[in-house]
Structure formats: C-alpha cells, structure tokens
C-alpha cells in the first residue's frame, strides 16, 4: 500500500473519531468542536501504528481501516437478516420439549491474509444459526455446532458455506473450494 492510501485511511479514522465526538457531546459551539478536532487528531496520531494489522507477502501493509465501507454495511444488513432466522431456529430448539440437539466440534481451514476477514468470519459464524467460533488459529477454524444441520451448513461440499464465500468476496481473498 502506498503512502497515499495510508493518508486516506488515517483521514477515515479522524473523521470517524470526530463524528463520534460530536454525537456523544451533542454540543455545537466552536469551543467544543475545536476540542473535538484536537482530540480526534491526537487519537489518529496515537493509533497510526496500531492500525497496521499485518503485512502481505509482498510487503504491502494491511490497514485496519482499509475495507470497502458500503459493501461492509450491505454485508452486515444481510447478516442481521440471518441473525433473525438463526434466533428463531434456536428458539424452536430451546423451547422444544425433546431438546433435539447433537453438539459437535467442526474443524475447517480457510486461509486469508487479512486479519479483518478472519474477524468478520468469526463474528458472523458466532451470530448465525447454531454455531459458535471457539478458536481461529492460522486460518484453522474450530467451531462448536449445536445440531447436525448447522454443522453441515459450513461445508462447501454440501453446496453451502454462504458466509465463507461472502466474507472472502468482501475482502477480495481467494479460497480453495475443495477444502473439506
């Protein structure tokens, strides 16, 4: 990533921090706006090292604010729909007198360079039907699934794995379709 991209990402952090300040302070006098600008500048300055999450093999920086914002928001809106479906399913399982569960541990590998992609996928798996991310180690996911159906939904072999495809598309990562 060139210096220009780093500058744009720092500007994004600055704007986000400033918007947060204005939202929380609810005051629009010049004095408070200036204080907010100063605080956001200091925050941006402090976080410029932390935001470099890792580097690709060719030395490019992976920046913590370098994601497609609108695609990301669209993805989260889709995910909220999935969360509602997941919760209704979980409610049916929990309120069923027979308690039809078959807990199991599922392991799969998904190599992705961007740590943000791993974060998004782990979060999404926890929030969607009957699966909780237990651990992510070097692209290897250990998932606890509540029922058989929800475990099967993670594998490409069953023509499923929608979340994994969507997250990989979001961050332009290439995934191998034949893993497990």
């Amino acid at each position: 990533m060139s210096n220009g991209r780093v500058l744009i990402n720092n500007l994004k952090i600055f704007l986000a921090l400033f918007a947060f300040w204005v939202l929380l302070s609810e005051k629009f006098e010049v004095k408070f706006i200036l204080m907010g600008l100063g605080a956001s500048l200091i925050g941006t300055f402090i976080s410029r090292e932390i935001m470099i999450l890792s580097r690709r093999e060719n030395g490019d920086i992976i920046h913590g604010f370098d994601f497609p914002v609108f695609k990301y928001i669209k993805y989260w809106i889709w995910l909220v729909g999935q969360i509602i479906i997941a919760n209704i399913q979980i409610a049916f399982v929990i309120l069923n007198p027979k308690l039809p569960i078959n807990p199991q541990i599922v392991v799969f590998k998904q190599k992705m360079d961007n740590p943000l992609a791993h974060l998004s996928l782990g979060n999404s798996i926890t929030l969607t039907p009957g699966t909780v991310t237990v651990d992510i180690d070097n692209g290897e996911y250990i998932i606890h699934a509540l029922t058989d159906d929800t475990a099967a939904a993670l594998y490409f072999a069953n023509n499923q794995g929608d979340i994994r495809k969507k997250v990989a598309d979001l961050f332009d990562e290439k995934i191998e379709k034949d893993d497990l």
Partner: protein
Amino acid sequence: MVNYIAIIFILFGFFFVSVAAIGVLRLPDFYTRMHASGKSETLGVMLTLIGFVIYNGFNLVSLKMMLVSAFILLGNPIGTHAISRAAFYSGLEPWRKKDN
C-alpha cells in the same frame, strides 16, 4: 400507532432475552449454553433498543441508542468467542449425545 410498533419490537426483544435465559437453564453443558446466551441475547437487546428508538423518534439520543446496538452486535460475539476459547484451552470436554 408508532407506540404500538415500538411495543411490538420491545415485546419481541423481551421474548428473545427470555429464550436466552431459558436456554442457559435447559441446555446440558457450557458450550451449548454459549449458543443461547451469545445469539438470542444479541438480538433481544438489539430489538429492545430499536423499539426505544421508534418510541423516542429520530434525534441525537436515538442515534446514540442505535450506536449502542451496533456495538452490541460487534462486541457480543467477541465476548462469546473469548469465553468459549478459554474453556476449550483449559480442557473442558464438550457434551455429546449418549447413543453415539
């Protein structure tokens, strides 16, 4: 009219938080209980906050409440993940069905 929509949202939120509580009591072991508390609670709290936003109308306070629900959406799965990971590494065996 707006009040009725807000009440419906808050009631649904109440329902999902209750389901989370019932799930924590009914499910057999730690990992399965994480399912109940991690998911149903997120949606329950979010629906309740959306109900509050609708009741309050659109102003800065409701914008703050939407921000709170966004942070819950981002933060709750991370908490679930951290606790279940800690349990996994301290060697807690997941509960399995007896017949297999």
